[in-house]
């Protein structure tokens, strides 16, 4: 009824407003696919590690050295994320392990759906360890759960030691921070590992930080030890017992 004269109201003018309280994560669709990916990994007893860093920090070099060190004991595969080219997947395949290249075009990060499609081309049943090398970027990858069990972020010593303070979201979501190219510390006076560690600690988590130098095999020790520790913590899952690995930080 119109309040002026009491006439009938036309359908066009009679609309009611509805206020819907939702309280739903904006990335809930991605998170559902990520949970699905994680189920795949768990079912096959595959430990999935999401490797993140800025471009050029040495993710692929670290993976190459890791494959050489571990391929006789563990079955490894790699998913490579880049805007363009399959150069990185080719580098990985040259070491005799399967690698799937995801080219994202203009997208600055991997998401759970992209990883899920790549999983269809991987022999998950025959794997122990899957590395997902994210697009080189310290901002966007932090927001997207892929279904990984562990987040590892590389900080190369050719960057600033205040990176954890500048990119708190990604560093706080990390289970391990790797100071890569650490063999260059002797000639790079500006980078102070203690300052990097303090900036990381200020993010409120007890995240370990280790040094690597992928081009010098002995310098990989702490990294390989950390991986072995994660793999041994992972093993019981493959035998159907309760997962010992919590959801990744920031998930």
């Amino acid at each position, binding site marked *: 009824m119109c309040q002026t004269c009491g006439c009938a109201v036309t359908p066009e003018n009679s609309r009611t407003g509805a206020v*819907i309280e939702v*309280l*739903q994560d904006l*990335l809930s669709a991605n998170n559902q696919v990520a949970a699905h990916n994680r189920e795949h990994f768990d079912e096959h007893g595959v430990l999935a590690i999401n490797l993140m860093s800025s471009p050029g920090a040495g993710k692929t070099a670290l993976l190459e050295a890791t494959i050489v060190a571990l391929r006789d004991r563990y079955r490894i595969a790699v998913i490579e994320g880049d805007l363009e080219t399959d150069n990185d997947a080719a580098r990985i395949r040259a070491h005799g392990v399967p690698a799937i290249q995801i080219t994202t075009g203009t997208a600055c990060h991997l998401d759970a759906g992209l990883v899920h499609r790549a999983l269809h081309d991987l022999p998950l049943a025959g794997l122990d360890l899957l590395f997902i090398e994210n697009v080189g970027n310290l*901002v966007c990858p932090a927001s997207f759960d892929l279904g990984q069990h562990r987040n590892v972020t590389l900080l190369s010593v050719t960057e600033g030691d205040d990176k954890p303070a*500048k990119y708190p979201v990604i560093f706080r979501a990390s289970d391990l921070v790797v100071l890569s190219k650490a063999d260059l510390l002797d000639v790079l006076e500006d980078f102070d590992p203690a300052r990097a560690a303090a900036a990381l600690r200020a*993010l409120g988590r007890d995240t370990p930080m280790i040094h690597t130098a992928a081009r010098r095999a002995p310098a990989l020790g702490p990294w390989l030890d950390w991986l072995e520790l994660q793999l041994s913590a992972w093993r019981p899952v493959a035998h159907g017992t309760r997962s010992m690995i919590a959801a990744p930080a920031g998930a």
Partner: protein
Amino acid sequence: MHELSVCQALLGQVAEIAKKRGASAVERITIEVGPLSGIEPALLASAFSILRAGGCAAQAQLSIESTMVSVDCAGCGARSPAEPNRLVCAVCGGFRTRIIAGDELRLRRVELRVPQSRSALTV
């Protein structure tokens, strides 16, 4: 610029809700974005102004509510405000903290225009 992906996800959720409720249009969308969400509100707002075109939210307003960061300390138990890159306990300085607020990236509320059915108008 992952704000585009996030905005697409937002519009997808809103479209689903609008369809389920039989809405003719979406009038306002309210989201919560914390400083630790990894999302830049201004970029999300400009992505929204582009991506909303042609859909049920084409005329919708986007309200972005910012939240403050606060943490709980595992050491002393205090809850204190914090900065995005300084998440230690403000009371005891402990670094084992849990984020209580500040990492939200949430669709909070949708306001819809729902046409009254003709039958409801028949008196």
